[in-house]
Structure formats: structure tokens, C-alpha cells
């Protein structure tokens, strides 16, 4: 299977000063993450605040340099940031954020906003840019009469459509979307999620979709990677992963989602405590202090991300070990 974007052993550590005496410490925001995104597919990164989802996104785009590891995009290593080659690659990979109002220029009309990337990269004549921008407004479901409006005159859903139109105008192969629907109301969220699907079908764009909302992720993703404290702990197709999570953390996460109609036999697992501080990541499996089924080995050995018989990737001693043990859990 061909790959559009490939991350290998990506890591990003920050030197910080912690505690009363400013002791030097190493914050491992991302700690050895590998994944592939095929063309026109969607990989979702899920996890709670501080798990490293957004840092991973920034590493992929070259917005921050990795401490270790590589990013390959369209068969080539990602060029060093702020070089001509990097800018060229960045035309092919765009970013969409949670807050569309913050991402848009309040002083530019919708049309100029959407055409701006073409202006910057000096593509086409003025008339062609305008025509292209209008075509994209149509593609994201905005009527032509909105072209002259300013961001504050639009609703949240309309603003996110403008952001998507602008991200698409350079015909990127990849869009990194960081919590793109989290600020939207349910009815509007559904409209934008459907739009993501439609745009993928129409333009063949791949998405790296970052979200904390598993229900949203299940709707849009072909693959889901669950992150905990800078590492991927489980990865697979969303249906299998949410129906039968193999990692105890995924299991707790899935069970914690409030649903309108609870499937019979789905018990809620309430985890104790907060996620640990990424400055002091626990030894062995980082999840072991909160894990309801941890055994001695979990305290000392870090589990590797390995394939299960069904093709899923899981980093858990128990998931790979004795099946009876897993039943008991």
C-alpha cells in the first residue's frame, strides 16, 4: 500500500525547569511515534489533553523540529523548515485548527481570505484566482452571496467552511485538522463532519484528524491511533477498536463516553486519578499506575507496539500475553 505521509519514531522532548528549585527535567511530549497515512484516507489521533496529539501534528508539518525520528511526505524526507523546498512541500500539506475565528483574518472578506494562498504563491491571474476561490466556496457549501462577508458576520459552522476552502485551494494532498469540530454545536458539527467526507471523496485529500471525541473520530476515520503520554498505545480500524478495545486505556476511554443509548453489558470503567505529569512519566508502561489490570511486569518493562492476530497494533503486555489473563481482566 502506498503511503502519503510516514512518521518513524518521532520524538519531541522539551528541557524544562520543574519544582521549587527549578530542577532540570525532560518533558517527553512525544516519545517514539510511528504511523502511515495513505492517500485519500483519514488517520485519527485521539487521546486526552497532554497526550501529545497536537505536538505530533506540528512535527508532521515541520512547524517544530523533532528531537528524534523522521517524517516522509510524498516519498521524500520533509525538508528543513523555512527553506524554499519546505514551503513547496507545505503547499501540499495544510492545517485546520479548532477555532476558525482565530485562524481567519478579520479584516479580509471571505473571498479574499480563500484566494490569499494563491496570492502568496503567485498562482494564476487575478481573475483565475477569483474564479477558483468561488468554486471552492461552492464546494464547501457556502453560497456566493457570502463571498463579500467578513468572518465576524458568519456563524461558527460557516467560518469553519471558509477555513476548509482556504486549506483546499492549493490542492493539498494532506490536511492536518486539529479538533476541527470541537467548538461547534451538535447540528452544525454533523454538517461539517459530512463535509469532511465529501471533500475527501471529491478532492482525494488525506486527513490527519486530531480529536478527543471518539464518536466524531469513528465517523470520519479509516484508522485510529490512541495516544497516552506521548506514545501510541493502540491502533486499528475504528469499528474493531471501539467495539473491542484491546488496551486497558482504550477500554476505559471508550467506556467513559456518555451515550444516549447504552449498549447492554457495556460497563463503565472509572479510572482513578489524573493522567500523570509528562515530566515524570511512570516507569514501564506509562499507564500502569491507573491501570485496573496491571501486573508486576507492567511496572518495569515498557510494552512494545505489536500486531494482534486481527491486525490491530497494541502496546500492552496483557493483550499480547495469556488470553485467560485478559478474560479475567
Amino acid at each position, binding site marked *: 500500500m502506498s503511503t502519503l505521509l510516514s512518521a518513524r519514531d518521532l520524538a519531541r522532548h522539551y528541557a524544562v525547569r520543574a519544582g521549587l528549585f527549578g530542577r532540570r527535567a525532560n518533558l517527553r511530549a512525544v516519545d517514539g511515534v510511528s504511523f502511515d497515512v495513505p492517500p485519500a484516507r483519514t488517520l485519527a489521533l485521539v487521546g*486526552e*489533553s497532554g497526550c501529545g496529539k497536537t505536538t505530533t501534528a506540528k512535527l508532521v508539518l515541520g512547524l517544530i523540529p523533532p528531537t528524534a525520528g523522521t517524517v516522509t511526505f510524498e516519498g521524500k524526507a520533509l525538508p528543513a523548515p523555512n527553506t524554499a523546498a519546505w514551503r513547496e512541500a507545505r503547499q501540499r500539506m495544510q492545517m485546520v485548527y479548532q477555532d476558525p475565528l482565530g485562524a481567519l483574518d478579520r479584516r479580509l472578506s471571505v473571498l479574499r481570505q480563500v484566494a490569499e494562498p494563491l496570492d502568496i504563491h503567485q498562482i494564476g491571474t487575478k481573475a483565475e484566482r477569483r474564479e477558483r476561490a468561488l468554486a471552492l466556496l461552492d464546494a464547501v457549501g457556502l453560497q456566493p452571496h457570502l463571498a463579500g462577508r467578513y468572518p465576524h458576520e458568519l*456563524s461558527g*459552522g*460557516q467560518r469553519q467552511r471558509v477555513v476548509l476552502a482556504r486549506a483546499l485551494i492549493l490542492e493539498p494532498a494532506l490536511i492536518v485538522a486539529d479538533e476541527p469540530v470541537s467548538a461547534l*454545536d*451538535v*447540528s*452544525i*458539527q*454533523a*454538517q461539517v*463532519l*459530512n463535509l469532511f*467526507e465529501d471533500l475527501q471523496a471529491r478532492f482525494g485529500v488525506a486527513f490527519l484528524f486530531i480529536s*478527543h471525541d*471518539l*464518536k*466524531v473520530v*469513528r*465517523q470520519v476515520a479509516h484508522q485510529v491511533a490512541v495516544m497516552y503520554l506521548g506514545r501510541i498505545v493502540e491502533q486499528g480500524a475504528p*469499528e474493531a477498536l*471501539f*467495539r473491542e478495545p484491546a488496551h486497558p486505556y482504550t477500554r*476505559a*476511554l*471508550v*467506556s*467513559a*463516553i*456518555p*451515550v*444516549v*443509548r*447504552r*449498549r447492554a453489558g457495556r460497563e*463503565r470503567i*472509572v*479510572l482513578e*486519578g*489524573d*493522567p500523570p505529569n509528562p515530566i515524570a512519566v511512570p516507569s514501564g508502561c506509562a499507564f500502569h499506575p491507573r491501570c485496573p489490570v496491571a501486573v508486576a511486569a507492567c511496572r518495569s518493562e515498557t510494552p512494545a507496539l505489536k500486531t494482534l492476530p486481527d491486525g490491530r497494533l497494541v502496546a500492552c503486555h496483557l493483550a499480547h500475553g495469556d488470553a485467560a489473563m485478559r478474560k479475567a481482566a
Partner: protein
Amino acid sequence: MGALVALSGLTVDFDTGKRMVRALHGVDLSVARGEAVGLVGESGSGKSVTWLAVLGLLGGRARIGGSVLLDGTELVGAPVRVLEAVRGKRIAMIFQDPASSLNPVHRIGRQIGEALALHRGLTGAAARAETLRLLDRVGIPAAARRLDDYPHQLSGGQNQRVMIAMALAGEPDLLIADEPTTALDATIQAQILALLGELRRDGNMAMVLISHDLGVVAENCDRVAVMYAGRIVEEASAERLFGAPQHPYTQGLLDALPDLDGPRRRLAAIPGTVPEPTRLPPGCAFAPRCPRAEAACAAAVPAFRMLTPGHRAACLKPAPYGATVRERAVA
């Protein structure tokens, strides 16, 4: 049986300087002792404004009409002295963002102590002992060591626990929880909701849970009211509202929600957006987005109809919800 709190015809108008804009168009809702009532709706539907109006917290630009009875005492237009005895004492409130509700420059022990002094006249050693008991009750580990912490030293989930401890300080009859877990991670949200349920059952405290998350409300409430554009449009027991909704807006919200299991389907989004309070359509505010709307819907605001005991909807064409609705939406 008298309700603990009964709102009838509650209206709120905001003075924009040029004209009055009506944000709440006559809300009728009651909460019994010990009951958990959910209030759902999208941003701007009036969920929070309703309860801020009840407590007289909307400020000078708001004009409040209608009636709010707390154990038979009228709160609308009541003197400040009466309201102050209610706020935090009889009816307590917690908000979405605990970090901005707590004072960042005071230790949490002092902040809870302040509430205890105000509502129960406790000071000194008695206040300290009660603060410890409350922190312990809301599940803060090693509470004695946490008393002297500042809010920034605690996580978001722990800060929300501190807020809940402060709300409990007055031993309220009713707790208004306004999006109490929206800013928290999923596993922490589960902890806080479990705690709220436990406190409510132990103390026979009523709770109004305001949330945009239908799942949160479905799992934590006895009765649910759905709001749209400043009005309640449907109200029923949680089981009935989510199992057999009749109002097209409630049905639309359920259709728009992605599932966690079952086959993946295309979401049935509600077309259009929520109208602004200054530009409400005549008649039913939902009519322009409604798949069942007809001419009569735009003529007048539909009155409530009692569909079955305890289940009412403000709709001219209530209809059962089922697989057919979804199939039609998908096709």
C-alpha cells in the same frame, strides 16, 4: 405535591441600548426535591440564561418577567436580601471552567472557608474541620495537604472537585451544574459525573444539569427538557425523551449525533443555523429548519401539547421517531 422550584412564564429581555431583545420567551419548568433535571440545547438556546435569571445574576441590563417560586417564595423581583439568602445557600451553581471561577490568588482552603462562614457561620477550627470533610467528600486525595494549595497547583478535574465542595458548603437543596464537565477529559468527566450522582443521592439534593452533550444528560438525569431559541420545545422523562422523542428538533439532534457502535451511517445534519434572538422567525422558531414544517407553523408559536402524562412538546405535528426517520434521512 409542591415542587422545590417552579418557573412559570419566565422571560428575560436584554437592553441593548437601542431596544430590548428577548432572550427567554416564557419558560415553564419545575424541579422536585432530589430530582435530576437535564437541560439540553445548542449555544444561545437559553439554558444558562434561565438559571442565571432565577438567581438574579444577569446584571442591570436584563429585565426578568414571570415567576420563580422556591418553596412558595417568589424570587422574581425579590429584594436583594432574599436573593442573597438563596444564592449559594439554597441554590448553588457550578460552571464549565473551574479555573476561572476560583480565585487564583487565594488558597483553596480559604476559598471554601469563606463559603462556610457566609452560609453557615462557621469559623476557625470548626470551619477547617468542615473544609477537610468536604474536600474528602468530593474525593480530593490527602485533603489536609491540599488546603494550602492554590488553584494552579491542582488539575482541572481537582479544581472542579473544589468548586463542587464550595457549592456543597451551603448544603443546598438544588445544585445547578452548568456544563460541569465540558472542559474536562473523558476519563475525568466520568469521575466528576459519578461524584455528582453520588452526592445527589446521599444528600437528597436536586440537580439541574445543563449540557450540550445529549449522552451526559441521558445518563445522569431523571427528566430532560430540550431548549431551542429561548423556549422549551419538548420535555419528558429521560427514557422517554431519548427513546420516543416527538419534536422534530429533538429528533434532529439525535440524528446528528455520531454513534459509538452499530453500522457507520452518514450523519443527518439539521440544515441551517440557530436563528439570532434579534431575527426570530414568526411562529415556531424551528420551522425554517424543520422537515415537517407547513404554513401553519409560521403563523403562530405552537402551544404545548401533553402527549402522554409527563411528556409535552410544543409542535403542531409531533410524530413518532424510529428507524424510518433515520432511513429517510440517510436516503
